[in-house]
């Protein structure tokens, strides 16, 4: 069992990280902590992609002109997941940026980031006195 876990430890690490992030997003009351959880969630996936590209004993995927004429794929790290993650990192930065901007506005408007202390308007407010009744519309 232990060997099974150790042999695929990169996947276990990413599962643990993803669950930590998921827990924070779902269970935390503070919006900032939710945002931190979201960050952990995203970076966990990026770490996972990083780990699937790497090979033990592999080197940078650059073919030298004067090297041996036999090119074996096993000698080189797979660059494609890493390139994909460059884009995903940018996406992650953008998510964090837009969330922080919104959190600043929320703090400015409500003075708190605790979810239960923020009181958005009631979805179905009762009409005010005289409004929407026959009396109110009469001239």
């Amino acid at each position: 069992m232990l060997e099974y876990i150790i042999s695929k430890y990169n996947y276990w690490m990413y599962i643990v990280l993803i669950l930590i992030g998921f827990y924070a997003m779902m269970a935390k009351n503070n919006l900032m902590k939710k945002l931190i959880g979201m960050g952990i969630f995203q970076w966990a996936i990026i770490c996972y992609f990083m780990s699937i590209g790497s090979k033990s004993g592999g080197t940078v995927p650059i073919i030298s002109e004067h090297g041996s004429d036999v090119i074996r794929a096993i000698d080189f790290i797979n660059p494609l997941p890493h390139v994909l993650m460059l884009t995903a990192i940018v996406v992650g930065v953008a998510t964090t940026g837009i969330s922080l901007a919104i959190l600043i506005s929320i703090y400015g408007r409500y003075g708190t980031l605790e979810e239960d202390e923020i009181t958005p308007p009631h979805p179905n407010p009762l009409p005010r006195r005289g409004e929407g009744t026959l009396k109110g519309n009469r001239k």
Partner: protein
Amino acid sequence: MISEQFPALIVVTPLILSFFIPVVGWWKRELCLPIVLFALSVCLLCAIGMLGTVIKHGIIHYRLGMWEPPWGIEYVVDHLNAFVLVIVSFISLSAAIYAKKSVEQELPEHKIPAFYTLLLLNTTGLLGITVTGDLFNLYVLLEIASFSAYGLIAIGEEGALVASFRYIVMGTIGACLYLLGVGYLYIVTGSLNIADLSQILPELYHSRVVLVAFAFFMVGIGIKMALFPLHVWLPDAYTHAPSVVSAALGATMTKVGAYVMIRVMFTLFKPYFSIEMIPATTILGWVAVAAIIFGCILAIAQSDLKRMLCYILIAEVGYIVMGIGVANRMSLTGAILHILNDAFMVACLFFVAGAIMYKMGTRDIRNFRYLHRKMPLTMAAFTIAALSVIGIPPTCGFFSKWYLILGAIYGGQWVFAVVLVLSSLLSAVVFFRVIEKVYFEPTVGVHNGESHEMVEVVRDEAPLSMLIPIFIMVAGILLLGVFSGKIISTIIQFAVPTGF
């Protein structure tokens, strides 16, 4: 020939022009809207051009930078996505025309260039999702569309900020799960191209990695398209967003989500995988039943018009997913036709809600009495769109429901057929509650036995730039109904994925 470059132009034009808008808006604010209109007109022309080419000559393959498909990014346009491209660009163009007056009233002036930038970026993302044939490219464009949607929603009224933050949290989970699915498929196949993957995958269908990837895709897309148990972000977000944003996003984003779902289930994976090997379609069918009933019943409970429309939208997503879930030729025809019809109906209803908000300053249904005398044209449009959602014959809503019910009957799914009919009844309750308030309030009130004098209502119609898009949508609803046979025989029967 420029027509060969349409698949790239449809994404590149709005993307590049959207970066000019903040700069131009800094200099001259009035120039923002013409740029948006120009970009979206180019998109619409490209989309129509591609639809024509696809109908005449078959599928278009476009290689970005001339890289061969499994390595480079490939744009593939077939009947299904050419059809969705036309819908998205047409609705976005109408929304941009509508935006002028609505945005001037609802947003502070210095935010207007930012608003137009985000609106154009959102369309870029949605068009890109539709046109691309590469899974990772789809993820990036999905995030472009989502980010601009977060921003667009956050500049709305009181409550929009919190709604937008909740949407960010949910949307990011959705996108990340989708990305994980892409990663899992990449591990076992080493490819990201949809056409290439659909060739490689059948040998690996018994692999647990592929099954998990499929599950991640379904949940991720389900969040993005607001499928029933994952819809919680939608009502708040679209209620508090500016009116034009609710209309544009409500009509396009969920439909593009439905398109991606059809792509993943029936093109990326072969239909027999999604239908027989794992009971994905059966589960989706029952989820759709829950979505339709839940959406319609909660819509009855709302007194805010826009919030009511949000729940109707959730039910409408349910219809499309039910068509996917029954999974036979007839029901998929219904689902694809409903993508078109629903875009027009939802856009029309949200446009009307925005026009009422513009003139009345409220969306509370209880304040709508005598509105048919104040805004006769707008309310006539609302009634036609409402009849279409209910499914009354000359309007387009009837025909897609007809195909969905036929599909359910051919598939032997009698419960689904009953739910579809029942939902028409429930939507009738939802909309007649509003229509009754607007049209059938007695003008001579009899109160405590004494009669009151006639109520004076001055006619005060919405401005022309809002009425035109509303009436384009109404004309669409009626014409699509009349010509639905033609649309099915020229486009949709080829758009149904192969294998049915």
